[in-house]
């Protein structure tokens, strides 16, 4: 009886924490999606200019806010072994955040956000034990797979806007990411989702290449 009353408390505490993490993760997802939409609203002609500068700056600030609020809420729930215990609860949000950061990084630099860079940006976020909060390799990689879908959409817009060179360079970028994924060792956390995401990535790649081909023929 008494022992089970204690077990009940433990189970309830775990479940409530999981619920809070799911909610914080959802907030991360929603805010990250907004950043992604903002990147898509940038002019597709690749001409740059003041408006684009301003929009990029705003997106950067929005990401900073996500880190300081929702991601911080995630981190503050975690300590020691909690990270892996609850990772399924907050992974979806972290993957979406990676996608948003990486798409903005691509829009600004034309390069892939690395795992080290992504973690460096999070270095100020601390967990409940005062440790720096880090992305798992799996969350980073799965976020990057989704990035390629966004780049495909950017490529289609560019072609539609008459920017002939963009599609070719985006095809090269996504091609390199796709190629890179082939040499990533399979780990348990990736096994469930990766094959399907790679299929989607390949179809994004073919779409960009086809768009590029249409401009040439």
């Amino acid at each position: 009886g008494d022992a089970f009353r204690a077990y009940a408390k433990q189970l309830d505490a775990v479940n409530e924490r999981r619920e809070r993490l799911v909610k914080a993760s959802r907030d991360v997802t929603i805010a990250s999606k907004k950043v992604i939409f903002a990147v898509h609203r940038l002019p597709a002609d690749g001409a740059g200019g003041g408006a684009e500068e301003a929009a990029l700056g705003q997106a950067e600030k929005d990401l900073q806010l996500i880190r300081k609020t929702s991601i911080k809420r995630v981190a503050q729930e975690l300590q020691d072994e909690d990270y892996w215990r609850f990772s399924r609860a907050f992974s979806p949000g972290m993957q979406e955040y990676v996608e948003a950061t990486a798409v903005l990084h691509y829009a600004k630099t034309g390069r892939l956000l690395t795992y080290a860079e992504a973690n460096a940006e999070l270095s100020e976020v601390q967990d409940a034990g005062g440790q720096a909060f880090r992305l798992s390799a799996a969350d980073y990689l799965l976020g990057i797979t989704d990035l390629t879908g966004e780049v495909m959409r950017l490529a289609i817009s560019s072609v539609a806007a008459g920017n002939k060179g963009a599609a070719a360079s985006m095809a090269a970028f996504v091609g390199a990411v796709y190629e890179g994924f082939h040499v990533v060792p399979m780990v348990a956390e990736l096994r469930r989702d990766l094959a399907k995401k790679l299929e989607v990535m390949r179809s994004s790649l073919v779409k960009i290449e086809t768009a590029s081909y249409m401009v040439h023929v």
Partner: protein
Amino acid sequence: TLFEGFRGELEASNAVREEIKAVSQSMDAETRKMQAALMGIHAGTDEAVASAVAKVREHLEPLRTLNAQLAAIMKQHPGQYYRYHDIWRHVHTSCAFLVAFVHWLEHGTLLTHAQVESELQLRHEEFGIDLEDYLVGVCSVSNEMPRYVVNRVTAGDYDCPAKVASFLSDLYAAFRLLNLRNDFLRKRFDGLKYDLKRVEEVLYDVKI
């Protein structure tokens, strides 16, 4: 190529996984031997029960050693218990089942979560048994009861049904205190209800 920096980290994680799997497989073989030995209780006589319990106890030491090996591996990867938990979850529920059942056969009481860990010489703060794994193991104890009671009565122990019915009834009441959100555990708990019902039927047959 891209992602080259990752290879080391991911391959290391795969290596840890393989290392844990190897120990888990040895634990699995051990617990299967113990479960086979435990089945001897269903011969129903006092001697059979005592002998089965003794045989199970013989394997306890190797099981502790293997658990200590797992603990040693995990000590090198602090905070990653739940990253690899799926590998040993099954054997840990078997451990909980075996230790708790043997204790019940000897003393007629339920081992607590903490007692199960200390029986296996595990220090919870270093490397323990997950609470839900313990609870699933307890459900397995319950699942064995209807068969045990039937066989004890066949062998002439007419007091057994009342004792078991009272134990399962308490257990059932205790489980009802839990808010089970874990579907697997809830399903196992549903089985407990059925076990209690069957034992009460035997108790009724014996009274008549």
